[in-house]
């Protein structure tokens, strides 16, 4: 009896979690008529017409390209800088490390509004609002503290003896970093990179404020389907599926690390 209740509860839970997602994907594969049928159509002949419409939309393709460029460059910078800083911090004594880590995390408490308005204001005066680099720079700035604190946890797993032995052999710090830390913590570095990409790809607020016509990322671009004449749900659900699908794949790749990383990203101090 208890087992049956357990399985029923679990089924209800999974249904609640998955149904909204299923419904969006299903709607994206429906014709206009099926999508708005009341009562809803459960069995339907799938069609790709919404996807064809979205993929022929130059603005959307452009935004996809922007999202890829911006999230990969910003994450590359974040992980690169983050790895160097994390290496330096792991080598310090416990008190110095904690103190610096605390400071780095405290940077992330402020709501984005407070640093994005001055950035916007300055960028507007320097005519940089339609520039990829300003967005990449801000995302790197936001993700570096996160990358540092996550990478520290991976670097701490590396036995200290490995470093000491290399030092006895006369290796320089940068050599130890490149030849020992990078290869040994490679999995963790890749996971950090993927998480940075995930955050940047999903981020909306900064992109909304700082991107212009040519630099719009996907989350901003997708809002253009919400027109004053009403919402075009068919193409919109297709676009939404295309936006989130890569992140679902990436999320599954770094499954165990997502929650660890996200809690780090938010604790901030």
């Amino acid at each position, binding site marked *: 009896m208890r087992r049956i209740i357990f399985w029923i*509860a679990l089924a209800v839970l999974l249904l609640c979690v998955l149904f909204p*997602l299923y*419904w969006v994907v299903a709607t994206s594969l429906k014709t206009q008529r099926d999508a708005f049928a009341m009562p809803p159509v459960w069995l339907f002949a799938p069609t790709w017409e919404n996807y064809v419409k979205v993929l022929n939309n130059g603005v959307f393709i452009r935004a996809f390209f922007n999202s890829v460029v911006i999230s990969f460059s910003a994450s590359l910078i974040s992980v690169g800088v983050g790895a160097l800083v994390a290496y330096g911090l792991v080598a310090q004594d416990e008190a110095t490390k904690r103190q610096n880590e605390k400071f780095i995390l405290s940077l992330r408490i402020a709501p984005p509004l407070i*640093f994005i*308005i001055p950035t916007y204001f300055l960028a507007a005066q320097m005519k940089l609002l339609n520039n990829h680099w300003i967005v990449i720079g801000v995302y790197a700035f936001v993700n570096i503290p996160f990358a540092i604190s996550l990478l520290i946890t991976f670097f701490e797993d590396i036995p200290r003896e490995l470093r000491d032995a290399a030092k006895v052999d006369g290796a320089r710090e940068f050599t130890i970093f490149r030849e020992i830390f990078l290869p040994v913590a490679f999995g963790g570095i890749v996971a950090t990179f993927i998480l940075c990409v995930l955050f940047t790809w999903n981020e909306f607020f900064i992109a909304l404020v700082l991107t212009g016509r040519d630099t719009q990322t996907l989350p901003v671009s997708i809002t253009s389907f919400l027109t004053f004449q009403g919402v075009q749900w068919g193409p*919109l659900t297709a676009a939404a599926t295309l936006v*989130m699908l890569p992140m679902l794949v990436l999320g599954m790749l770094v*499954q165990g690390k997502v929650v660890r990383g996200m809690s780090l990203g938010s604790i901030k101090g």
Partner: protein
Amino acid sequence: MKDATTYFYRPVVLFFGTVSVILTVYVVWLTLHNISLLRPGQESFIGFDNYVRLLFDGRAINALGRTVLFTVAATVIEVSLGLAISLLVDREFLGKRIVRGILLVPIVMTPVVVGLTWRFLLDPSNGMMNYLLSTIGLGPVDWLGNPNVALFSLLMADIWQWTPFVVLLTMASLESLPGDPQNAARVDGAREWQVLWYITLPALKRALMVVALIRAIDAVKAFDIFYIMTRGGPALSTETLNLYGYISAFTNFDISYSLTIAMVLTILTNVALLLLYNLAFKAPKQGEA
């Protein structure tokens, strides 16, 4: 000789420190002026007028109230629901890994897409939610159009996205608990609810506090689903302080006032955080004593 490892982090930490100090000073300086993009070149020093204005701005006070309501409701519901679910799945069963994977889905989903998804489900005429209600004989609800309901519809979307996060974190801490005290209590004849109340929950307290802290910080800053689902409407009924700050800056172009809002929001968040933080990290000591 100086340790070379300091060169790896000092410059970056110094850079971040400098930027934050400059930014803070700059923001404070901006809030003491009346800079508006609508009146370029006419800004002047006005002292604390923006802060006084905020104090008597009914719209801002209401927005602050909604921020508090949303944050407290989201945090309490997500943590309690998440705890209940994690206790439910805290056992060995077939497909546990798959359940974990499924729970990850809302967390990694783009928040804008989450907002769109719920707006779609809550559509007053074609939405799934009203259809489901109608099958059990309940009248249509204008989820996002009714000022009394809209904030709760947003809450629902937030709960859907972030409860799984609480579940996964709590599951991890449940698994890392030593099972001995529980088993010992069971051998001594304790009932399941006693084991839960006197042993498991106190052991989880710290982890739950941290999760609650994380969710509270994010709820204060919630923006994406608000912007997508209601944009603060109808009749400002879902406008939080964060959203009001955004609208002040990018609809009214009132840069200084918007930054004043952001400043006050930051200070209030930090004060609340500090209180919660002390609560979270003093609690275990009392528990152990």
